[in-house]
């Protein structure tokens, strides 16, 4: 269960971003960025605020359309993506500023993640015919497994609005997992969490990667955690790629340090502290 074994499992290139450039009315958000993601690996995109991390994700799953560059997913080349297609191809994501469905229960929120797989027609649903009910139940079972996996049992039927922030983050992850994605995009999964919550979250992320072999791309602010759980890291700064490689390579990259120095000492501390491992991650067998 050591690092060695993990890296064996990492397969060929699943996603390849080629020379992506994106701008909003003249303002350049991303400039000619290329990087690839391999099957089963955990790939981190880090960088100071406004480095274009989120824009990167939004391009990845088709919320934004880049002016230049193309996305190669699983051998298929796309110059423009749209959310629906991304979802159908098996790309799921979580959101930085929780985008849960406030009015719905934890269960229903995660159930929505199954909608692409629910085929029963309007009429069948309206009359709750056998097939419709069976389908509902079949997917309920899948969702229950996710709830079990994320240890949300105690809140199954609570409206997500009433949950504490940390739990909502977990539900968000659960909703993405319900799509049984090949590629999972995590937008600052640990933003605004305390150390303990961060450790839990990193444990879940690793477990997802282990249990389901899901390829994961995550954006993070907290270098410490990222360095600990990711196989390779891309560093962005002002929409440009300034570093790419294993955590150690990145950590020793002078340009990276400079970028972080640029935004304040504590980030560097984080970067250096990153050497020390996160118990949560350790517990998960890393």
């Amino acid at each position, binding site marked *: 269960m050591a690092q060695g074994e993990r890296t064996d499992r990492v397969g060929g290139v699943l996603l390849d971003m080629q020379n992506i450039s994106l701008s909003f009315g003249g303002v350049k958000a991303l400039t000619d960025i290329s990087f690839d993601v391999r099957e089963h690996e955990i790939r981190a995109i880090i960088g100071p605020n406004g480095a274009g991390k989120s824009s990167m994700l939004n391009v990845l799953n088709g919320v934004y359309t880049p002016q230049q560059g193309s996305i190669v997913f699983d051998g298929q080349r796309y110059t423009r993506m749209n959310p629906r297609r991304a979802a159908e191809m098996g790309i799921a994501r979580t959101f930085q500023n929780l985008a849960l469905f406030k009015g719905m229960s934890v269960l229903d929120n995660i159930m929505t993640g199954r909608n692409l797989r629910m085929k029963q027609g309007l009429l069948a649903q309206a009359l709750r015919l056998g097939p419709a009910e069976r389908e509902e139940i079949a997917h309920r079972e899948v969702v229950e497994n996710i709830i079990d996996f994320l240890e949300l*049992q105690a809140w199954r039927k609570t409206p997500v609005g009433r949950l504490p922030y940390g739990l909502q983050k977990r539900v968000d992850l659960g909703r993405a997992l319900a799509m049984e994605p090949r590629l999972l995009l995590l937008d600052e999964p640990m933003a605004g969490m305390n150390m303990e919550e961060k450790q839990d979250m990193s444990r879940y992320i690793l477990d997802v990667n282990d249990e389901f072999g899901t390829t994961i791309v995550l954006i993070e602010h907290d270098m410490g955690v990222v360095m600990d759980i990711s196989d390779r890291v891309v560093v962005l700064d002002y929409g440009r790629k300034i570093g790419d490689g294993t955590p150690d390579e990145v950590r020793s990259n002078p340009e990276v340090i400079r970028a972080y120095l640029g935004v304040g000492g504590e980030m560097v501390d984080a970067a250096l502290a990153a050497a020390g491992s996160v118990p949560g991650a350790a517990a998960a*067998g890393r």
Partner: protein
Amino acid sequence: MAPSRSAAPAAAQTFPALLLEHARLRPDKPAIREKDLGIWQTLTWRQVAEAVRATTHGLAALGVRRGEHVAVVGENRPRLYMAMMAAQCLGAIPVPLYQDAIAQEMAFVLRDAEIGVVVAEDQEQVDKMLEVRGECPALRHVIYDDPRGLRHYRDQALLSWDELEALGTRHAQAEPGFFQDCVDAVSPQDTAAMFYTSGTTGTPKGVVLTHAALIDRARVIERMECLTDREDVLAYLPPAWIGQNMFSYTQLLVTGFTVNHPESPATVEIDMRDIGPTYYFAPPRVLEGLLTRVTIRMEDAGWIKRRLFDSCMALARRVGVRLMDGEPVGLLDRALYALGDVLIYGPLRNALGMSRVRVAYTAGEAIGPDLFAFYRSIGINLKQLYGSTETSVFVCVQPDGKVRADTVGPPVEGVQIRVADSGEIQLKSPGLFKEYYRNPEATQAALTEDGWFRTGDAGYLDEEGHLRIIDRAKDVGRLADGSLFAPKYIENKLKFFPYIKEAVAFGAGRSEVCVFVNIDLEAVGDWAERRGLPYAGYTDLASKPEVYALIGQCIEQVNADLARDPKLCGSQMRRYLVLHKELDPDDDELTRTRKVRRAFIAAKYDTLVQAMYEGRDSQYVETEVKYEDGRRGVIRATVAIADARVFAPALREAA
């Protein structure tokens, strides 16, 4: 269909036989439910029997032989239960381990019982096993129930439950008759299970219990409480603890009711409300916790509701218990109580998950009379029982209608009790253990030469034949005049008062009994505020004459109690004082588990002790204290000493 009393005829004298009986008599009735994936997944007796058969073959395939020990470690989980059954079918001996024990503690047991195969619940337990494998040469296989996180474990010893069953089916094809042969080979006198006593003194001891012993006790209780196969039990305590094991495993197999396993420790309360068990068991601390939650939640209620609640509870205190005991109660009170039942008691029982409880037991430690009364008064048939691992739990049980807070009821069918001159309770019972595993000297020490079991508890049978536990035998002392002196007993009685946090009784070898008292700052502080009594901190409050009066009343009540008790009336408290500081583990006055260190305190506060026995009415002391931040300081105070009202033993006849 009508609920049938355990139809498993006397023929079935072993657990395997019982299992097959139920599979035959009630194949489609639920045997084990588990809240899993959001619903109560149900296993019928047939399914259980089938799974056990496969598992038995599986264990056999792993080379488990008759008489070998098989460890089972985890929460209450159907598969762990079935593993125990399977082991028993093989004639092997299941040894449940405490799931929260650390690896090293387990290592001892694994070595002591030469465990070859462990059935573990999940990654957490598996990790422990792998950690100590080096020290346990015998350990060959670790079977796990929940594969989560174990996917990439490459250890040869590891085996998933499914793999085990697969092995089983193959083995079954090879030797079809095997299972039945094993089952038939098991005899009632064989060892059924081994429980390690948590070992307050020295290393844990393996208590060896036979099929006959366990099953006999369960049968007796089934008759006594008229248990049927319709009962629902919630298994939420460690299965390695004989109490839980008796209720949710032995009785399950004897009576054939349904045992329910909660989803996770975090959801026990919800699951309890879901299931609404009919047959319930809880140690006092659990009941205490529930009651506290109730009071706290009521705090925030509007005043109308609170008034209603308080008045209803008052009524309940007055008549509830008597109704429960079937004593005569005025018609008006009955009517009022019925109303209260709709408004408060019923909903309360529902909130506690006890609406359906027919029989509830508590045991393990002394239970406060108020706490005890609370549950009975709202219509929950809570009763005390007395027993231990060595006695297969049931020694004494309070029969319906004869329930009192301060006794544990009469010996149940088949149990003989005698009180040694030392005051120790000794007993004979069909449920008695065979021996301590590989520990003859301990076994010998536990039994008298004429074969009675030494409980190590001091007490006596009162005139109604109810057993009354006073104290641990070793703690019981005697006053100068030779009469019985049980400090813990007295201290507990005092501590049942909300105002008293700690108490230390002195008197061994002395003429009379005196006590130190620690007031409960919260309770007394609250009491003081309500009567507008200003105070500055603990020491100040403790020295108030009003407080002394308050504590005086408590002591008086206890004395009255003691006076009613022929054996203990001698040890009524003559004098008391309220300590000027709170007893504190940091000052070594309490153990980390908050048990008073009588000797240490006696030495430390010698001046006060002297003062009490010299009859002074106040004494100046300086005491060194350690603060949280490690600084040391000195508290100087003049501690008042008061006399307590005592009662003549005669008072009993008068009353």
